[in-house]
């Protein structure tokens, strides 16, 4: 019997795909990890990635259920399908981890990131900056005579694109939250 290949867009009830394809191509995956909100749980997750040499492209964490004492960690990582499966299995054996979902393979999902941009400039540069911010639907959250702080929400690619455009217009600093993601539709 040959290993099954999970098609993008198909759904699965388990994060542990025990019959992965073993392609050498690196893929980017977004993992949603529901954890017990205990001290040390984030260190445990991060320690797993550093200890076993996995990549973290982006990481966000916050409590999502105060009464249930649960936090949600969203990690964007890159690796071959075998590595991605190892990451999911390794995360799954951490005692404080309740659930691991691979949003990249388990159906469609939405991803958003929030970023703050500090742009310093004057004259035409300033006008161009605010014009581009308008096109990207970024909000001005702070303004002085020589600077703006823009707030922008979107996919990581959109924020990358905005950063590239702002670069020649006096971009000084960026703060990004990292990716937050949820599956589409009624399924949780």
């Amino acid at each position, binding site marked *: *019997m040959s290993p099954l290949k999970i098609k993008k867009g198909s759904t699965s009830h388990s994060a542990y795909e025990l019959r*992965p394809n*073993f392609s050498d191509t690196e893929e980017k995956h977004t993992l949603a990890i529901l954890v017990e909100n205990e001290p040390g749980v984030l260190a445990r997750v991060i320690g797993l990635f550093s200890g076993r040499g996995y990549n973290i492209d982006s990481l966000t964490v916050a409590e999502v259920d105060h009464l249930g004492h649960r936090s949600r960690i969203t990690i964007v990582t890159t690796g071959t399908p075998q590595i991605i499966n*190892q990451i999911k*299995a390794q995360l799954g*054996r951490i005692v404080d981890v309740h659930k691991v979902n691979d949003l990249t393979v388990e159906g469609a999902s939405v991803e958003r990131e929030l970023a703050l941009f500090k742009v310093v400039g004057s004259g035409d540069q300033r006008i161009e900056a605010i014009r581009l911010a308008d096109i990207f639907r970024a909000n001005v959250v702070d303004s002085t005579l020589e600077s703006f702080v823009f707030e922008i929400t979107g996919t990581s690619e959109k924020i990358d694109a905005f950063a590239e455009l702002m670069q020649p217009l006096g971009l000084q600093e960026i703060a990004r939250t990292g990716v937050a993601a949820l599956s589409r539709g009624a399924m949780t």
Partner: protein
Amino acid sequence: MTKAMTGAKMVVQALIDQGVDVVFGYPGGAVLPIYDEIFQQNSIKHVLVRHEQGAVHAAEGYARSTGKPGVALVTSGPGATNAVTGLTDALMDSIPIIVLTGQVPTFMIGSDAFQEADTVGITRPCTKHNWLVKETDKLAPTLHEAFHIATSGRPGPVVIDIPKDVQFATGTYTEARQVETHYNPQVKGDMEMITELAKAMETAKKPVFYTGGGVINSGPAASQLLRELVAATGFPITSTLMGLGSYPASGDNWIGMLGMHGLYEANMAMHDCDLMINIGARFDDRITGRLDAFSPGSKKAHIDIDASSINKVIKVDMPILGDCAHVLEDLLNVWKSRGRKTDKEAVGQWWHQINDWRKVDCLSFKQEGKIIKPQYALQRLEELTKKHDRYICTEVGQHQMWAAQYLGFEDPNRWMTSGGLGTMGYGFPASIGVQMGHPDALVINVAGEASWLMNMQELGTAMQYNLPVKQFILNNERLGMVRQWQELLHGERYSSSWSESLPDFVKLAEAFGTKGIQCHDPDTLDDAIMEMITYDGPVLFDCLVEKHENCFPMIPSGKAHNEMLLGDADTSNAIQAGGAVLV
């Protein structure tokens, strides 16, 4: 029932409620309240070790030999950091132990207080789980959960770090049955996949069972079911170092240990098989050799309780996530209900081939002259002790591999060795733990002189508690395995691999008040071993052996199972540049 009591009393109460009868430990400032409680009761025996590493290895030895979790108690700071090697060892070999560490009082945490260390931070990567308990009310539930987590799923070590003020404060004791946990690993395997494996067994022409420590960790039922399955199918069975004893060495279908220093027939069978049934082993690099040449023609099934072990290094065709005993029971039932079929003719041919490989007689050696060969020493030890109620521990190195090759294990839980981490200094304290669990048994630690010296201070412990552990030291005045690799890989430049300034082991034993025996003559070896066995107390047996004996057979680093070295004649240019970087 809830009761008010101090945190220190809760610790002792929870240990009693969990059925603990012995704790290995070493006191210090941050655990004094717990030691005070231990002093005032008689249910739990405390064994004072001479170094915290010894406490953890002793707890491991106790756990491996009894099947119950082992418990160690150490103080904060250096007590906890000294426990780290034992914790890592237990994590690698999936041994259930609970290590309680004292901590500075909560209000001093983070102030670089005396004997303060970030114990949960340091032990996070070397435990299955750990806790810093900051409230006395949470202490009892945490202790009960710790036993649950250490022993269920894939077993492993856990640490509970208890600040001193939490030990002094009064809180409410919670009983185990009142504690809720979400940790509940899957034990039943997927029936569809089990059926697929049963079908594969029916048609396999060259099948082999490859078993590991998971069978032993799963409990005696798993070993029993394994024996039944092997007997019913007639398939050959090999095992990793960690799995020795789950199938008896005297069993009809036993083809010996596999791996880097495994038997020729076992490794050849692994390489040539068409169906590999991995039960509770993890395709460790000591087992697989060169990955791209690992058993190229086989379908592989893998039964494991840990999803992260499956498809980690070797791609398998039939992954079965579950506990060995549960899956073996289902597998046996499915295979029986389908008519107990195997391809008898093909399997007969397969056995014919295996018997041809056996003729190579890869463990043969010649005992000549007046110098004891280490293999001969172990052969005699086996012959003279196999009828006893015997438990064997080892240190790490050549002697460990020879012990695995030349001693026979008939039952699980009789073989305590540091497999995954390869911890020199493991065996002696482990033998103390084993003897505590089995006071009347013959407990032997097969050691090298260098490994044994790493935790020699525990001779004091053995004396204090009158534990008659036999230290069978194969003394070649070398770090034998290091020396062997330097011979094969580093142009015979023996950099720091000899044991200089060795003690006189007989006088050392006498200094501690017990018996030392030295033997260098093959003709007097039997008498000396008998003297060791019959002496009522710990014995240091200094067995002077051939200094330059190498351990064979051997799969050199970076080679495949069918490229084994069988003896010194094979070793020239055996390891090429690619393999030299591997360990």
